């Protein structure tokens, strides 16, 4: 564990992600105010002792909403990465194992998905399926399938050529058993690294979709949504925009650094270069 924390990226990323996750966890038990409770007497307030991050146009406490928004962001990150990982790894393994037309069609499908500008297609999907938090996750998750499929394919293709696979075959292991017991454990660390980075990207993407009104619907608190609502009041109450914006920036930075730090520490080749 110590070698992880000697890495600056990892330590910083871990600290930031920890703050975000802690906010989310605490929000289940306690928030300063009910996140959706309106209060007409305390509208658009600047930060104060009773409302550390100020209030919005309905008098809702921004700190409480940022905390609940963290839950939203983490759920989005988890669900999208889960969609991408499960289907992407499956397709990548198939692609690497069968090769030929299976590989060809899966990879061309990946290229096709990659070819579209991600956010535009996500907008398209959510406008077809209707704007909702779940559809936003679906739209982002679909884009993660080729990311993980390509990674899995690239890494496992070289693994199939390795001698320990031949040795496992010679000792009677089935192809399926080799995939599960020998290939998967070997691709785990690049997958974890990629997953962490995609987690950060998902938070940003969801914020973008929610900002456009295609993600979480009011009154549900989402950082992107909060930015959208703050836009109208930028002149009189910039606080409303600043804090959700800072939350997005720190969360994305945190998980990105965490991913970078993990790559530096998990990949032995990277360590040697240093």
């Amino acid at each position, binding site marked *: 564990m110590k070698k992880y924390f000697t890495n600056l990226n990892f330590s910083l990323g871990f600290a930031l992600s920890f703050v975000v996750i802690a906010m989310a966890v605490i929000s289940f038990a306690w928030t300063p105010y009910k996140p959706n409770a309106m209060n007409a007497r305390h509208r658009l307030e600047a930060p104060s002792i009773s409302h550390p991050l100020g209030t919005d146009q309905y008098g809702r406490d921004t700190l409480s909403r940022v905390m609940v928004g963290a839950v939203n962001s983490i759920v989005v990150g988890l669900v999208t990465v889960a969609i991408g990982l499960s289907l992407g790894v499956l397709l990548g393994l198939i692609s690497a194992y069968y090769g030929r037309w299976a590989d060809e069609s899966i990879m061309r499908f990946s290229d096709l998905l990659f070819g579209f500008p991600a956010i535009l297609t996500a907008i398209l999907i959510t406008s077809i399926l209707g704007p909702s938090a779940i559809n936003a996750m679906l739209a982002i998750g679909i884009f993660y399938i080729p990311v993980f499929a390509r990674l899995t394919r690239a890494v496992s293709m070289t693994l199939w050529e*390795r*001698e*320990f696979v*031949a*040795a496992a075959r*010679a*000792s*009677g292991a089935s192809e399926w058993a080799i995939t599960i017991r020998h290939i998967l454990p070997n691709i785990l660390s690049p997958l974890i690294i990629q997953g962490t980075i995609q987690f950060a990207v998902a938070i940003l993407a969801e914020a973008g979709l929610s900002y456009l009104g295609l993600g979480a619907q009011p009154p549900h608190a989402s950082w992107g949504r909060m930015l959208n609502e703050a836009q109208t009041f930028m002149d009189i109450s910039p606080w409303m925009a600043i804090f959700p914006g800072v939350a997005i920036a720190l969360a994305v930075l945190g998980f990105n650094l965490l991913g970078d730090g993990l790559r530096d520490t998990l990949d032995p080749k990277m360590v040697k270069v240093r």
Partner: protein
Amino acid sequence: MEENLLEIEDLSVHFHTPEGIGRAVDHVSLSIAKGETLGLVGESGCGKSVTSLSILGLIPSPPGRIHSGHIYFDGKDLRSMGENALRHVRGRDISMIFQEPMTSLNPVLPIGRQVAEPLMVHHRISRQAALEEAVQWLNRVKIPAPEKRLHEYPHQLSGGMRQRVMIAMAMVCRPRLLIADEPTTALDVSIQSQILSLMEGLRHETGMSLLLITHDLGVVAQMAKRVVVMYAGQVVEVAGLQDLFERPFHPYTQGLLKSIPRLGSRAAGKKERLKEIKGTVPSLLDPVSGCKFADRCPRVFDVCRERQPELEAIRDGQQARCWKTQFSERSGRYA
């Protein structure tokens, strides 16, 4: 004659490449008796490894394909077995160890699990029981503190240790035939002899047969009773160990033996240059009409370039694929 455990009859393995068909193994026949150690000798690319992989049905296909021939193990034709049945032979009846102990172990799995895996595959016993058995085998291949090593990863072991782990992994189901493909090539000389005597001890103890593939005649001399020499995909000579070293018949075998540096050969006063075999191995892609060794042979006849010689018996237990067999009979002398 003892009963043969493994019998390869007229095996041909072809590799289909864009440049043409490579005949990696060309009508090879060989047999191994129960409890016997057979040395399979030849230079890189002569088809030793492909022969051994085809026994287990592990030729990468495509591009490889067993073109013809039969492989009998304990009377059963392995080639007619389905993939499933064959999988139960692998690791249980026949197992294999590879050249590179550095890469033959999975780097992310603890060695205990890897040694236990064949047991869990073939005998469907619990992981706990398999691990206990693995400890015993690690102990038998003389790995110190096996209980502790069980949870270590391959990178924590030295090359010799890893090869011991590989041997434990191959032996754990008590196979009747162990195929060792260059088991000591990647190791230091002192470790080599330890590994060889370990394998010899295990063979003696379990009564298994051993197919030892190597390019090192020194290893063969230490281990095998009988030797098969391969050249360019063909068996060129079969001989008992003593005959091989004292009366090698095929010019290729003779060349191999001359190319071994001998201790004391310079002591006689004259500096002697080590003899090499001139020329290079013919490409497996072009069909050769005559003897495949003709271009490099120091004693080539006209017929050698025209027709391919068959494997002929020279004396009891010794065969060679050379036209000399025919001529020497007529002239009444051994060449």
